[in-house]
């Protein structure tokens, strides 16, 4: 599925940046570019060395007043003039437009072709000035691609009709509503679960769950935990569902979770 040519020019050209700005390679060349080349800024990948236990690095700072320095140069074309409407919730059409644009991007063509993906979230996104798309209507689209067991996290520029930022990682985003429903369906249909349910038990909530230890299947596989219990009562059972194979992998009394 090839991306439409010159879509950026066809759609709302009046909102183009006032002065020439660098654009993603995929727009400038009209060809699909590797994910890294199209990022407008630093990639948000967990590749960065995680250092949660790092000790704070501190330096002397006698007082706030003494620490203050004169302002350096003019303030950027600044956040002060930011348009609040860019933060506004998406219309159904904007959400649909964003998803269409993403699925037409050649970098995720495999995902779109196989069609085993779930849309986790579509939300407005606003980038700070002076970034060249700071005044564009942006949408963050997060998709879980089951065909490749990966997370696609994209920033779609609706004004330019392009995917302006794309991260493809092994991160596990939250569950989509459809995944929650599937987990409930799989759990309630499982014979091992049915024999352990008590009268009045029903699915109370579906949690996004991941294992802490590598020997737990949910450590590396996309999983949900369905909590059963009586309405208004205590939970009775926790059922872990592997969403890659749609099967129950663990049934645990709630008190032993």
């Amino acid at each position, binding site marked *: 599925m090839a991306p439409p040519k010159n879509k950026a020019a066809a759609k709302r050209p009046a909102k183009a940046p006032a002065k020439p700005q660098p654009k993603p390679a995929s727009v400038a060349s009209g060809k699909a570019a590797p994910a890294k080349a199209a990022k*407008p*800024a*630093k990639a*948000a990948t967990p590749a*960065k060395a*995680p*250092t949660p*236990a*790092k000790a*704070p*690095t*501190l*330096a*002397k*700072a006698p*007082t*706030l*007043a003494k*620490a*203050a*320095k004169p*302002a*350096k140069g003019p*303030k*950027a074309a600044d*956040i*002060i003039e930011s348009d609040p409407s860019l*933060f*506004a919730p998406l219309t159904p059409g904007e959400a649909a437009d964003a998803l269409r644009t993403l699925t037409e991007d050649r970098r995720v063509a495999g995902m779109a072709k196989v069609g085993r993906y779930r849309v986790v*979230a579509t*939300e407005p996104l606003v980038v*700070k*000035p002076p*970034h060249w798309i700071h005044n564009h209507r942006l949408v963050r689209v*997060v998709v879980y691609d089951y065909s490749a067991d990966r997370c696609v*996290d994209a920033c779609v520029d609706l004004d330019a009709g392009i995917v302006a930022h794309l991260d493809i*990682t*092994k*991160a*596990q*985003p*939250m569950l989509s509503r459809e995944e929650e429903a599937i987990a409930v369906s799989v759990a309630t249909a499982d014979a091992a679960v049915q024999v352990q349910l008590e009268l009045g038990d029903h699915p109370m*909530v579906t*949690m*996004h*769950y*991941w294992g*802490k*230890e*590598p020997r737990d299947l*949910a*450590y590396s596989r996309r999983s949900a935990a369905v*909590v059963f*219990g009586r309405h208004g009562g*205590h*939970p009775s059972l926790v059922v872990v569902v592997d969403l890659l194979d749609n099967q129950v992998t663990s049934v*645990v009394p709630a*008190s*032993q*979770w």
Partner: protein
Amino acid sequence: MSNVINEANWKFHWRLTESAGIMIYLAEYRGRRVLWEASLPYVTVDHQRDALEPTSDGLDTRGPWWVPLGTRTLAGNVRVQPFRGGIELSADFTAGPYHYQQLWRFHDDGRLSPWLTIYGSGLHDQHTYHPHWRFDFDLDGAGHDALESFTDGRWQRVEEEGWFPHTGEADDTGFVWRQIDFGSNCAVHLRPHSWDDAELFAVRYHDGEWAPFSPRAAAGSAPFPAAYVGREPLDDQDVAIWYVAHVHFDQSFPYTAGPWIKLDGF
């Protein structure tokens, strides 16, 4: 209901997100920009066990889980209510045995309370909540900011990104961290709840390092926001901070977690 509120010396916008509760954005105090955006990206819950049961499957500890606080878990409506000396937003979220009330309280004297009240019994008594707030303060502009931590009896500049747990030390008024703006001398002070067992992650703002839609990074990797922490300098930069509380369930719940935030120099 309008999503722009202009009361009690504050002007701010809000919206309900898909997973991060009520988001506040473009907040100003006395006509000066304070905040680009702030939200509650996730509240994870993990469980502990006193002893292994004979029928145990051998996993002595389960991993954490969470459910988004947003449109799918909202119970009722988002409320906007004035109170003596300010205005507040509140919303209730329900997910099975977990119940939360998110609060944003704006005081006319420049204090701000992003809080979360935790109700509900959970699965059993042995569990801990980990609410994560993300604040992108832009004091009088996005750049030229820095972070300071009250350590060894004085405020000390944080040179680079990192993890800054509350050790119990605080200044005379209880504040532990502060973000300052060099150009204006404005500052935002943060005071943790004394029972929050709080910690702060400070990172340099980058487009692309938005709040992830889950704390879960790839298997074996550090979770977010720790996965964003590198060694970039923070001095004179655009700084984003994460405040994380760790609240163990006990019978005296509900418990209200979250920092006090106070503006200075506005």
